[in-house]
């Protein structure tokens, strides 16, 4: 999956400091169009912080983020969504008082190809909900959904933005084996539709199947990068996961 041409997304020496705690330190990597990039690492490694920096919820303390060659510095989250960066939240954030359909309609109305007509936006939303498998639950209140369905809703919301870059934050947490396979398949189909994906995941089996390349974060630093096979054999990575009780 080597892609020619400039990368879709680039991080250059990105660091983030929170009042004395260095959450990310000198992280640099690039992602090419159509790639599925996996991001793994122990808890607290800084994975979600990185997603927050890319989506615009936070700004880096130093370093640059480039999307399609343009720096993202200073762009608020809604502008990045318009540019084509979509994300899901680990702690899912549906609009509680709205129906499943309306939750996704927001993305269709305000995303990369904003739809101004309410009816057309709702139709587009229905299409994305059917894609993720929630086609029969359009009218249900969003906060009445169970766990796996909530994840599908999060996904549909991000897809409705028609993102060029999709950031997935642990979408498989708490799912059983069957559900995981379904989500893996879904993600593949999303990539086949032309979307570039950055996946944070703990479920190793899934990340191995999905990723073209894998990045490993520990204590805010990138400690390994390569194919799944390479990275998962890397002694540094094994040590990071198996821990500090070696001595």
């Amino acid at each position: 999956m080597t892609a020619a041409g400039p990368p879709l997304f680039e991080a250059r020496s990105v660091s983030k400091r929170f009042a004395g705690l260095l959450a990310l330190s000198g992280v640099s990597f690039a992602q090419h169009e159509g790639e599925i990039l996996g991001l793994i690492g122990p808890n607290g490694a800084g994975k979600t912080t990185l997603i927050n920096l890319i989506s615009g919820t936070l700004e880096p303390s130093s370093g640059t983020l480039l999307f399609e060659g343009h720096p993202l510095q200073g762009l608020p989250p809604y502008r990045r969504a318009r540019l084509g960066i979509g994300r899901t939240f680990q702690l899912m954030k549906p609009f509680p008082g709205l129906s499943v359909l309306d939750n996704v309609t927001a993305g269709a109305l305000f995303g990369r190809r904003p739809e101004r007509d309410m009816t057309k936006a709702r139709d587009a939303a229905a299409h994305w909900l059917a894609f993720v498998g929630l086609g029969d639950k359009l009218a249900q209140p969003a906060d009445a959904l169970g766990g796996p369905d909530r994840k599908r809703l999060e996904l549909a919301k991000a897809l409705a933005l028609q993102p060029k870059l999709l950031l997935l934050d642990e979408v498989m947490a708490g799912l059983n084996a069957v559900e995981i396979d379904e989500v893996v398949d879904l993600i593949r189909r999303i990539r086949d539709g032309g979307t570039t994906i950055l996946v944070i995941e703990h479920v190793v089996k899934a990340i191995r199947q999905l990723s073209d390349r894998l990045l490993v974060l520990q204590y805010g630093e990138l400690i390994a990068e390569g194919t799944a096979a390479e990275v998962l054999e890397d002694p540094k990575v094994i040590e990071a996961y198996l821990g500090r009780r070696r001595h």
Partner: protein
Amino acid sequence: MKALPWALAVLAVAALAVVPFTLSPVLVQFGISTLLLAVLAQGWNIIGGFTGYASFGNSVFYGLGTYGTAVTMTKFHQSFALGLVVGAVVSVGFALLLGLPVLRLRGHYFAITTLALSEAVAAIIANLGITGRNTGLILPLIRGDSMFYEMSLALMVLATLTVWWLARSRFGFGLIAIREREDAAEVMGIPTTRYKVLAFGLAALFSALAGGIHAYWITFIDPASAFDISLNVRMIIMAVFGGAGTVIGPVVGAFLLSGVAEVLASTVTGIASLFFGLVIIAAVVFTPSGVIQAIRRLPRRGLATFLDAVRETRL
């Protein structure tokens, strides 16, 4: 679009429009006050009901509209129309300017800030010469309550139509998303800051126009009445009791609560306010989502609707 609600709405407006020609002058005056309160309630509905920012200081926009109109007419001897425009411009300008810092606050903090801001502006106006300090201003007298009634009715219809449009538009959808979950709305591409400030400005516009009409009608204004704190509570309770976030809720709430207050004032003198306080308490306890919501549930659950409501919100 269903035809029946529209037909009913047109009928209702028509019925209201003929009031000055059919009913007593006292009722016309009641009508003007209530219609203007309904406008204030709708204004609050836009920023509080739809956007979820419960402002406790919309009286500042009403007051600025009042004074803008009054100063234009008394100190500069201009027409009422120009007065209304000035009042609206000042008020909306204030909303857009101060909206930016103030709308960064949430929940209780936002509520208190708007209240304090409203009081601060009132205190400043009470000290300025051009606004007549504490003695106030007297506007030129014009007879004809009917004219003010029809103006108030027109403004109320305009405000309600705007809210109706909000409920169906992309902009209104954005506001609702902000209310439901602002951080999620931001990453979904909604320009939250811009939308919040616009909603605030819209609320300011209607409140200012109501203030201007009221000033010319009453002909005497002073800081205490123009920036009356109790207006805030009244407009909120009317909107909430009627149904915050709905289209006609605030209007229904305004008419119902004003009606109750009037009836109490005329039958049980002296302790009318006491009963009004009790009515507010009962209303909020038994219809926490507003009267409209309660009415929708009545067919299914009957009187148990009210007990359900209590059960849902109790600790």
